[in-house]
Every structure is written in C-alpha cells, then in structure tokens.
C-alpha cells in the first residue's frame, strides 16, 4: 500500500482551497472591474448622446429642415478612437452623423432606449440608442421633432482594464499564497509534532518497560487524548496479562522443582550403595510414584493454561448441548471411592434438568475439583451436598457444599489463585498443587460463567458456580 502523509494531505487541501480562493477573487475582481468600466462608459455614452441631440437646431431661414452642427460635437469618449454617431428625426430622416460613419455599421437599435454591445470589424462597440429625445432648440413657428440618437463608442478600455485587474489580483493572490502556504506548512508540522512524540514514547515500551509517559503536549491535544487513553488501557491490560504469564511461568518452574527434587533424591538414594533386587524394585516403584506426581502436576498446568486461553480468547468451539446433571453424576461417580474412604456421603439434588452447550469433560472437571476440595476439608462421616438449579431465567446454578472447617475471609479471595494451598498446616502428601480451583475458575470463565465461595469458619463452605444457559 502506498504510504500516505497526513502532513502532505493537509497541505494539499490548504493549497487547493487557496488556489480556489484566488481564482474566485480574480473572477470577482474582473467582473467588478467590468461593471465599473461599463457603468462609467455608459454614463459617458449617455452624456455624449445627449450632447449630440442638443446640437440639432432649426435653420435661421425658417426652412423646414434641421441642421446639425458637426463642429460642436464632443470629442470621442476615450480621446483616442473616434466614436460613431448618427441622429435622425422621425419625420425628416437622418439629420447628422459622425464624419467617418461607416456605411455598413449596424444601426438598428435592438431596444427603443438602452445600451448594447456590438462588434464591428473586430472592434467591440458599446452602443446607446436614445429614442424620441426632445429638441433643445425651439422656434415659435416650427414644430417640435422627436429625435432618435444612435451613439457607439469603441470599447477598447474594457478589455485592458479587465486584464489589468485580473492580473493584479491573481499576482497578489499568488504572492499571498506562498506566504500563507508556508505558514500552514509550519502550523501543520507543529500540530503533528505530538504524534511524533507519541510514537517515540510508544517505541520505548517493551516487555521489560511498560511505563508509558504521556508527553504533556500530547496530553493537551484534544484529538490525541482518546488515542492515548486507549493506549494506556491497552498497555495496562497487556502488562497485566504479561505479568500473569510471567508469574505463572515462575510459579510453574518453582513448583516443578519439588517433584523433580523428590524423584532425583529417590533415584540417587537407590544407587548410593549396592542393594538387593527387592530394594531396587521398591525404589523403582517409588520413583514411578514420584514420576506420576510430576506428570499429574504437568497435566494440571497444561489444563490450566488451556482453560485460561479459552477464557481469554473466548474461542468459539463447536459444542453440543449437554445435561448438567449428568456431568455432576459423572464427577460424583469419579470421586466415589475417595468420598467413601473419608466416610462422606455425597447428596445430589437436581431441581430440574438443565441443558446448555458445553464440553462435558470440562464441566466434569470443574465439579470433580470442587468435590475433591469438599472431601478434603470435610470431617469424617459428614455430608457433602451437590445441588443443581436455576438462577433467574438465563443461568444454571451449581452449588457444592461441605460441612468442614470453613475458609477464613482473608483466604476466601485467594483460593482461586494458582498454586495457592489453603491448608498451610498440613504437610504435602496428597499430591495437591493448588491448581484445582484455578483450573475450575478458568473453565467456568471460558463458558462466560462465574465461580465464588461462601464460607463460615467452623460451619462449612459453599462453592457456587453460575453458567449462562446460552453463550451470548
């Protein structure tokens, strides 16, 4: 794609508008000049025509004709080119005309009274026709004649005046334009400078440096504020998710050290001295057990990473509609032996059958994790409740309830964190990594739902999961 420069485009717009303005001004100037020149010419024409009419007089001898005194005729209007005129009386015909009257001059008046322009032998003429002008000279025994005056003056000045005005305005505009364009160039450059600063700041951001210093001139620019605000929010989100990833990686590496240390120490102890084959067998079986634990941790971490990816990316998966109750029953079945070992009875109640689009394995994992926790913190021979119901019209609600020791308020919001172990008082022997609830939360969020815990110390804990019936 061809690069576009805002600066150049803005400047182009300025130049084009200025050129249009200059053209408009020139046209207006020319038109105005034409009007002025015409008006003054018309004025002179009228004065000259009137004076021509005034030169018609009666003869001294009283004969019935009219005289025209050529010698008193006014000078031509522009003083250089001679005018053409002709005066006639209605009853008597032509009375007088200019000396150099060209025979073929178009004398017919288009109007009774008025001005018009006409070209004759390549020369533009402005013509005034005056009809029925009363004679100035009066004799008592003579009738009054109405005179028709035709007066034409070559219109040389008009064009030169027009040209001069046009040229003058155009030149002045050009001169001004070069100045204003330079000014606009400077202004545009200056007002686009914050963009450059913004880019400089943005280029400093890296995985190690998330700080975005908004330059003050950018902060003061109205148009850039939405951009910088958006950038800040975006950066905050990115930094958060990046640090979460880094934290996860750090935690994961840290958590992996212990099972690896166990496995390593088991194997090293085995080869520390010669042993009987029975001892080797026990040792290898132990190493396998340690390996299983390591594998389980890896599996949990991968599962969490995948679930979080779904939750963050809101990946569209092809899901078939499944029944929540059946996934609960499957999870209860999966943990039956563990529950029986602890003497816990799992009571399952289903208010109504609820179907929603989901991967049954995901939901089963969520319920199994919640149940596993409930069993771990339940006293022997206590009851654990699993309840499926509706919350409003659009959410399924699943509650897993135990009657264990409960969780303190300060721990309640931390139990969903990765690698968080609620029971700091117990030694680690059950292969718990503190990932179960984190996985559950990520899975529930991947379906657009939410999970929360309510607990009362000494009374028990309720884990509540709400899932939307249809993904929005």
């Amino acid at each position, binding site marked *: 794609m061809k690069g576009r420069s805002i600066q150049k485009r803005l400047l182009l717009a300025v130049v084009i508008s200025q050129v249009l303005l200059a053209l408009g001004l020139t046209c207006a100037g020319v038109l105005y000049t034409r009007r002025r020149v015409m008006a003054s010419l018309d004025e002179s024409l009228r004065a000259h025509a009137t004076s021509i009419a005034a030169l018609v007089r009666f003869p001294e001898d009283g004969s019935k004709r009219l005289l025209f005194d050529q010698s008193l005729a006014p000078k031509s209007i522009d003083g250089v080119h001679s005018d053409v005129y002709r005066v006639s009386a209605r009853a008597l015909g032509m009375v007088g005309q200019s000396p150099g009257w060209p025979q073929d001059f178009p004398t017919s008046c288009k109007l009774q009274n008025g001005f018009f322009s006409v070209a004759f032998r390549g020369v533009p003429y402005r013509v005034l026709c005056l009809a029925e002008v009363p004679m100035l000279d009066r004799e008592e025994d003579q009738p009054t004649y109405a005179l028709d005056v035709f007066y034409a003056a070559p219109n040389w000045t008009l064009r030169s005046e027009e040209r001069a005005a046009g040229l003058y305005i155009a030149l002045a505009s050009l001169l001004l334009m070069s100045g204003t364009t330079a000014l606009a160039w400077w202004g545009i450059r200056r007002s686009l400078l914050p963009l450059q600063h913004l880019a400089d700041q943005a280029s400093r951001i890296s995985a190690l440096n998330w700080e975005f210093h908004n330059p003050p001139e950018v902060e003061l620019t109205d148009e850039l504020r939405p951009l910088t605000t958006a950038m800040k929010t975006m950066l905050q989100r990115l930094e958060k998710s990046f640090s979460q990833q880094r934290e996860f990686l750090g935690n994961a590496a840290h958590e992996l050290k212990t099972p690896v*240390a166990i496995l*390593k*120490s088991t194997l090293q*102890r085995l080869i520390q001295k010669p042993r009987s084959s029975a001892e080797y067998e026990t040792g290898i079986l132990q190493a396998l*057990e340690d390996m299983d634990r390591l594998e389980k941790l890896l599996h949990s971490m991968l599962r969490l990473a995948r679930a979080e990816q779904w939750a963050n990316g809101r990946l569209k998966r092809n899901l078939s509609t499944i029944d929540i109750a059946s996934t609960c029953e499957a999870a209860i079945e999966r943990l039956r032996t563990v529950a029986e070992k602890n003497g816990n009875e799992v009571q399952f109640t289903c208010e109504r059958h609820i179907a929603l689009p989901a991967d049954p394995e995901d939901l089963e994992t969520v319920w199994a994790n919640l149940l596993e926790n409930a069993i771990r913190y339940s006293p022997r021979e206590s009851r654990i409740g699993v309840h499926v119901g509706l919350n409003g019209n659009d959410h399924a609600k699943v509650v897993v309830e135990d009657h264990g020791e409960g969780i303190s308020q300060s721990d309640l919001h931390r139990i969903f964190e990765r690698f968080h172990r609620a029971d700091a008082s117990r*030694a*680690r022997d059950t292969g718990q990594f503190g990932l179960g609830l984190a996985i559950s939360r990520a899975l529930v969020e991947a379906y657009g739902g939410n999970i929360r815990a309510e607990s009362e110390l000494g009374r028990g804990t309720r884990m509540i999961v709400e899932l939307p019936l249809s993904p929005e």
Partner: protein
Amino acid sequence: MRVLLIEDEIRLAENVAGSLRESAGYAVDVSHDGEQGLFLAESNPYDLVLLDLMLPLMSGVEVLKAIRAAGQHSPVLVLTARDEKDSIIDLLNAGADDYLTKPFDLGELLARCKALIRRGKGRSSPLMKIGDLEINTANHLVRRAGDNVPLTAMEYRVLEYLAHRANAVVSKTELLEHLYDYNWEKFSNVIEVYVSGLRRKLNDGSSRQLIQTLRGQGYILQG
C-alpha cells in the same frame, strides 16, 4: 552425629533422612512443619539442622531466626527452591551457614553436611588425628599406627563423636543425645557395649588405652 531435618514434602524428607542415615550414619529427626521443627531444635543439641523454607505453620526463615535468637549454634543448612541472590543473602545474614537449591544432588548434600558438622566442631580437615589414631570422616576409615581398624557403623559413630570432643569428658547422656534420634529407646548400657567393642578393636596390638572411663562422669578420648 544427630541431625534435624525440617521438610514438609514427606517423600523428599524420607529420601534425605534415609540417605543421611544410610550413608553418613547420622541419627536423623524429621519434622514436617515449622513449629514442631523449632520445638525439636530448641530442645535437642543437634549437630546440624537441615531447613526447608516453605513450611506449614511457620516459615523456614522464622524458624531460623528463632533458633539463632534462642542462642543455638548448630550449623544450619537451608534447602530452598528459590535461587534469587537476594533471598540467599537474607538467609545467610539471618544466620544460615549454607544453602542448597532444589533439586539438589544427594551426594553434594551429604558432603556439605559433613563439612558443616566438621566446622561446627571447629575443624576444617576431614582427617582427624589423635595421637597415633587417624579418623577419615569422609570415608569413615579408621587407622591406628598405620593399621586399618574395621569398625561397625555404630562403633564408628561413637568414636567420631568422641574424637570431635577429644580430651574432654563426654557423658553417656551426651553420647545418647548425639547418636540417636528421638524414636529410639535410650538405654545407656547400649553405649557401654559399643565403647567396650571400640576399646577391644582399637587396642589390638597396643597396650595404651585410648578411651578411658571416668566413673560416674563418662568417657574421654586422649591421644
């Protein structure tokens, strides 16, 4: 030598304790949480304390500080999964003598334990010489006047402890405290059996008694 291991990972604790007992012949007490570990450390004269940092009930750093505040001078070797410089500096400044990061090598752990115990007793060489008696604490070989003296594991442990406290009177109670972990029934006549065995083996071909009995007080090893 008696060692206290405070480690909450049960399987790891089993392996480390087993290895210390088998390969070094130490008596090992194991605690899986910080509070019990501190109680044991304060109530027994351990020759070495192995301390994990991430512990239930009380963190390893708190245990370490409490041990030092109580005036216990037992060497402390910290087992940690963290290897950031800052946390290591803090640990050493809080009174730890050494550290190992997980996952560690059992052989290295044993060697460090031996070195720390040695230094705790004011020695730097693994070879101890008392008169014509030579004890190599690295491979548990004992020689008298250049001749190898074959000892049982328990006899060696008694001798090594007496050697560390050479020229001082060591009571039977002190021997019991340093040679047995708290799971053992402590009968002082067990010590007498080992000491008489030691005397017999060490005096083979020589007339001078290295270990003398001070009636009512204990034993003394003199070169």
